[in-house]
């Protein structure tokens, strides 16, 4: 069965393979194109550097008119990532546009790692440390980076 959402996801996958953005990768799971596994490599010159952070992306048949649900599987310590891995990012909620594709989603999340927004915290502790104690923040992030090698 090939619905518009599935066809669009096939195009997203093709684009991701033909024109892969640096530092991110993703592919549909073997038996379901509506569920993807992705990896974001921690951006250079950030405390996330060297980390390999895994995510899942779940699409509905309303894609691309509705954004997918994106969640970190790897443990994260970031002002805009909830304890369950959910991500607080405007383009995945109220500023979603149907012109975004998987490439755009993953690169936006990657830039969120470099530039957290401590004013809309999903993790209050991470937001507070980011603003007030950058050294401790980086220490907690580094612990996640090391954890990301194992799982």
């Amino acid at each position, binding site marked *: 069965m*090939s*619905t*518009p959402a599935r*066809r*669009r996801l096939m*195009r*997203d996958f093709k*684009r991701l393979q033909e024109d892969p953005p640096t530092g991110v990768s993703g592919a549909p799971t073997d038996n379901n194109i509506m569920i993807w596994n992705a990896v974001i490599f921690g951006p250079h010159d950030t405390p996330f550097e060297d980390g390999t952070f895994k995510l899942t992306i779940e699409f509905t048949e309303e894609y*691309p*008119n509705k954004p997918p649900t994106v969640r970190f599987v790897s443990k994260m310590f970031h002002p805009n990532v909830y304890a369950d891995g959910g991500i607080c990012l405007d383009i995945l909620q109220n500023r979603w*546009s*149907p*012109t975004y*594709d998987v490439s755009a989603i993953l690169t936006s999340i990657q830039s969120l790692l470099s530039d957290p927004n401590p004013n809309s915290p999903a993790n209050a502790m991470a937001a507070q440390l980011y603003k007030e104690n950058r050294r401790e923040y980086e220490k907690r992030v580094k612990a996640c980076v090391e954890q990301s090698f194992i799982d």
Partner: protein
Amino acid sequence: MDEEDKISDSENQTKPEKMFTLKRWNSVAMWSWDCSTDTCAICRVQVMDACLRCQAESKKDATNKDVTCVVCWGECNHSFHHCCISLWVKQSNRCPLCQQEWSIQRLSS
């Protein structure tokens, strides 16, 4: 002096120097649709082809294109399949590319 001038004049007339010879002419033409993009940014198919939804439902006529699947230009000059943009504006009346309020400038098939 006068004679010399006459001579050179007559030489110039009888044996005009060739500046260059045109041996071959390759014409290069450029064209584009009169809009800022020719791929529908919503479904990622060329706007002149049927949109993904119409392809999936295969509502095609003889030319392999759904008769109602037309190109829709907004006042901002962005173009999408009419099918694609009309689904989106039900949710948010903004151009998905420039976030301006969406209003239709024209439709064409």
